[in-house]
């Protein structure tokens, strides 16, 4: 079981690492805002402050989509501070990369710190499992991904629940903090 868990988190962290790496290097990104009527206000770019903000939450069917490398983030409210290389999606954001999906109330990317942060109803879905938590922080410098707050890892044959869970990519190490509870179905066909 532990082996399966390690494989899952290695996979997830590889994807997060790819996201971080794409931020560290020069991104070949694209921003699209679609489904907006021609006369409806979409957003504002304050060139002096270097801030682009967009809000299409009041427009049915409208979406903001940011794509860089193989990562796509979709949401309805976003802010991009170009000077700081900081991006935040609020009001239900979804990040996808191949078969990896992260949804959360807010998704932030701190380019200068090589850090990705998701908060509020965090759900990470992969082919093998689904992780639920209140917050996720991935730091490329320290190479650690930290899931905190009501962490629940759901597999096909069981679940793990706890308060804090850290994964180190290069060390192939999983750390469970505090009380963790596992429930697995051991029946075999």
């Amino acid at each position, binding site marked *: 079981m532990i082996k399966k868990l390690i494989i899952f988190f290695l996979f997830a962290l590889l994807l997060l690492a790819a996201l971080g790496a794409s931020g560290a290097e020069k991104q070949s990104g694209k*921003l699209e805002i679609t489904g907006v009527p021609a006369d409806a206000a979409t957003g504002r770019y304050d060139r002096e402050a270097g801030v682009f903000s967009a809000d299409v939450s009041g427009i049915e069917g409208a979406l903001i989509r940011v794509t860089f490398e193989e990562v796509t983030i979709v949401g309805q409210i976003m802010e991009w501070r170009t000077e700081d290389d900081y991006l935040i999606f609020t009001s239900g954001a979804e990040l996808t990369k191949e078969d990896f999906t992260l949804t959360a109330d807010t998704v932030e990317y701190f380019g200068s710190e090589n850090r990705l942060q998701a908060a509020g109803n965090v759900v990470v879905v992969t082919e093998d499992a689904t992780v639920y938590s209140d917050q996720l922080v991935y730091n490329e410098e320290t190479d650690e991904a930290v899931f905190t707050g009501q962490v629940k890892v759901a597999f096909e044959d069981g679940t793990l629940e706890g308060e804090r869970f850290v994964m180190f990519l290069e060390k192939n190490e999983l750390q469970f903090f505090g009380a963790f509870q596992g429930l697995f179905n051991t029946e075999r066909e």
Partner: protein
Amino acid sequence: MNLSTKAKRLIAAGVVLVGVILFITFRYLATPAPPAVSVPPSVQLVESRLVGRKEGQRQWEIVSRMVLQEGDVVTLSELEEMIVFQDGEPYLSIDTPRAQWQRKQEILHLHGPVLVEGKEGFQLESDFLEWQGRTNMLSSPGPVRIIWRGMEITASEMAMDTEEGVVHLKRDVEIRDEGLVWKLEEVVYNLDAESMDFYGNVLMEEEAGSD
């Protein structure tokens, strides 16, 4: 001379007939000459410096080789210099081959190719521009290209409120700025605040070949 009664009657009838004919001719058929109308002749000036003022302040100054005034329309051709003033100071320099000034309406038409240059490297190119003196609006109903603070902006239509420093750009708007290309449907750009409000769908991509 003794005329018979018959002859006298014939002469009298003839006189009456001639009188009737003359009366009809002059009363109904002959058109009276039109009253004299004062038509000012066209005025053509060569090598002129014209200055437009509003409430005593200079609005514009033009040096033109050829100025033709017909009624309220002043046509300027072979323009050498055209400067638009704001608060009495030179604001825009305009290079255009021909211009028409409708004095009563305070409308200036610039026939292209028109190049407008301002402070901080501001450049505006269009095939036709209209300047409305009453509203301080400079508009291009056709394609326009603007260079401003390192940005290159193109659009199919433009209206600029020169007093407020606000530019409305419409249809196929494209902004190139620091390696990024923005493609937009409509933009309202506040030049002083350096802020842009976007309307409709937006696409932003990295420019090919940028670092």
